[in-house]
């Protein structure tokens, strides 16, 4: 039952600032990935990332909050403001306890933390600033958005690496069904500092290519890892009742699971998780018009995803795409951005292509949309996300009634 809808999109991503700028870049295949500019990364094996271009916190975030928060929170505060404006909802007219904030975060205020640790180790404990206590921890973004907009409902933060971005949307739906009228959800991340990059590199899943066009090519025979990025999307979720004419799309179904296949030898859980999300949405696999893939970009993880999609939908049974090749993987912000992109695809009846990927690896029995966008009427989309360690989530979206 389509009882909950997404009414506002706030996008701050390597593909652009604002949902429409992002969407245009996606359809044009315009990549936000480039050589890292935030610091000199030339001495590291990983030199590429998706940075939010031209982001100046002073243009988007109240001045007093800038020194109190990390870039990751700047991006989220800016995106929340944009999403609320886009939604047409008026927080001032809603009961304060019936508005909540639930965001995903994967690594907190990494750059802020590196700066404060440097002071600590170079100068001593008394040089650590007062804002370290509120800027670095994973709940900083949710807390600041709650304060900024007077939202006093049940706030939350879910960390499940890339999968957390779908689990927060499910938590928003849970709150809307039981006690809230409006939930600010989605998320952002930014670990664009030397220590952040080096810590990410330790997972062994990142691409060391220096060719921005070919560094992150999921499902390709040349897949060699992913490129990291920053930013994401903040989404406004509301009850369908009262949001008539404002919905980008409906939250139809969700499921999450945890993959133990690498450790236990049991089968991967992705196919079963997708089926549970479809059950929750009351849909058969044939009712799904497009899949936004997790697209890890490593041969083994790509194979697991392609096999799950083929098992659920049949070989090449549904169009699949991964526009995240234009942004890199955004951790807590990645899946919310995919949700935003999927909602825009549903709105316009066009499936954006997976830029970069050229030739599918052997055994990838999926209909990956390549080369250019594909025009076709769309009613439903499935978004898949997986997080480091085994987190697995699936979200089903339906087209909205936005005028």
């Amino acid at each position, binding site marked *: 039952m389509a009882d909950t809808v997404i009414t506002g999109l706030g996008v701050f991503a390597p593909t652009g600032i604002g949902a429409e700028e992002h969407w245009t870049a996606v359809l044009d295949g315009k990549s936000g990935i480039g050589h890292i500019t935030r610091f000199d990364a030339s001495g590291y094996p990983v030199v590429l990332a998706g940075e939010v271009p031209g982001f100046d916190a002073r243009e988007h975030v109240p001045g007093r909050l800038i020194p109190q928060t990390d870039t990751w929170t700047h991006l989220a505060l800016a995106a929340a403001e944009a999403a609320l404006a886009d939604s047409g909802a008026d927080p001032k007219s809603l009961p304060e306890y019936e508005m909540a904030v639930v965001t995903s975060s994967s690594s907190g205020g990494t750059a802020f933390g590196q700066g404060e640790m440097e002071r600590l180790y170079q100068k001593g404990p008394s040089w650590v600033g007062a804002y370290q206590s509120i800027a670095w921890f994973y*709940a900083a973004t*949710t807390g600041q958005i709650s304060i900024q907009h007077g939202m006093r409902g049940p706030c939350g933060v879910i960390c499940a690496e890339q999968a957390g971005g779908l689990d927060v949307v499910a938590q928003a739906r849970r709150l809307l069904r039981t006690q809230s009228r409006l939930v600010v959800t989605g998320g952002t991340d930014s670990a664009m500092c030397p220590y952040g990059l080096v810590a990410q590199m330790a997972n062994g899943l990142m691409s060391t290519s220096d060719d921005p066009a070919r560094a992150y090519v999921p499902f390709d025979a040349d897949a060699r890892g992913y490129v990291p990025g920053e930013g994401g999307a903040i989404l406004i979720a509301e009850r369908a009742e009262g949001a008539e004419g404002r919905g980008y799309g409906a939250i139809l179904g969700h499921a999450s699971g945890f993959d133990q296949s690498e450790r236990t030898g049991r089968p991967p859980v992705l196919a079963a998780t997708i089926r549970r999300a479809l059950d929750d949405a009351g849909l058969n696999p044939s009712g799904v018009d497009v899949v936004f893939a997790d697209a890890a970009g490593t041969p083994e993880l790509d194979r697991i995803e392609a096999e799950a999609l083929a098992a659920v939908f049949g070989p090449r049974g549904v169009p699949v795409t991964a526009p995240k090749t234009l942004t890199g993987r955004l951790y807590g912000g990645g899946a919310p951005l995919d949700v935003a992109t999927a909602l825009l695809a549903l709105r316009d009846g066009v499936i954006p292509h997976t830029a970069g990927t050229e030739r599918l690896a052997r055994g990838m029995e999926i209909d990956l949309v390549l080369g250019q966008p594909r025009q076709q009427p769309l009613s439903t989309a499935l978004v898949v996300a997986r997080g480091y360690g085994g987190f697995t989530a699936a979200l089903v979206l339906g087209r909205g009634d936005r005028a």
Partner: protein
Amino acid sequence: MTRKAVITGVGVVAPGGVGREAFWDTLTAGRTATREITLFDASEFRSRIAAEADFDAVAAGLSAREIRRMDRAAQFAVVSAREALRDSGITGVDPGRIAVSIGSAVGCTMGLEEEYAVLSDGGRQWLVDHTYGVPHLYGYMVPSTLAVEVANEVSAEGPVGLISTGCTSGLDAVSHGAQLIQEGAADLVLAGATDAPISPITSACFDAIKATSPSNHDAAHASRPFDKRRDGFVLGEGSAVMVLEEEESARRRGAHIYAEVAGFASRSNAFHMTGLKPDGREMAEAITVALRRAKLDKSDVDYINAHGSGTKQNDRHETAAFKRSLGNRAYEVPVSSIKSMVGHSLGAIGSIEVAACALALDRQVVPPTANLHHADPECDLDYVPLVAREHAMDAVLSVGSGFGGFQTAMLLTRV
């Protein structure tokens, strides 16, 4: 028919002793576990006190590889989870029906800081040297690792998540776990929280805002909630993990049931990241909603496990919240803070307090508030000073309050 979530296993790593029974001994003896910091050289810090867990990873059963791989917070969580599983005796659950909900405020901060110190050569290199990175560094960067480690203990294939709402993380993670049972999304949930924040960067950031106690001359009595001489909280560390099950299936297998997680709610003050208004309005609202969900009246509350951090603004804030939500009942029931003994372990403490409440209900004993000799005149409830008390209880309330303005209330009932 509604599904009820019950606690059938409790595992604890806390200052004062590792394991559930050592923890309960500490509480009922009114013994304080706060002391001068030994985990690092704190001589240059304003607050040099903490409640440290005497945790020996080898004695606790962790393998050499687990010790190498896991941050201290992960070690606590895994050891607690194993104890909870043993305690519950549960086996044979379909992996797809097993879920994990772990809370943590600061994740693997200790591992992150130790590695930073190496990679940056003691802070000298902004462009840190990646060749010194350990393979598990990414696992320290993402706090979700804590949930991964617990999930792997039970080969969970159901919903797994790390809840990080600062100092209410522990209560929120247990709430989320109970919700998964109630909704039918899982039949077994390992729910709890862990934090190991006693490290230079965390101590320094609390020093900077003067939140922690500077009573370095009297470390054993530095955590003094509700006492007029209190001067800040004392940092702690630890973990508690509970086995949550659906009540009927727990009864069918003859499990010992400590308590039902009967109701929970959270609210935010949308006021300040660290400041609290003295009226306690949002915490009171959370308590009222939690009571409604538990289908309880305020007169049913038999004991309040307070947040009781030992800062003046907290103690007054929550005292006001209890009066606002419970009326006269607030004056009739015992209220106590175990932080007086085991310190404030940030996100973990909420779950450690749930464990304390489950044990209190099970054994009908209220833990005391240690170090309470001279009550703050503005805190005029019965805070159970110094000595544990036998007390008949059917329903207990536990509350948490934290940075970000988050306020959570939970009701546990005897079944």
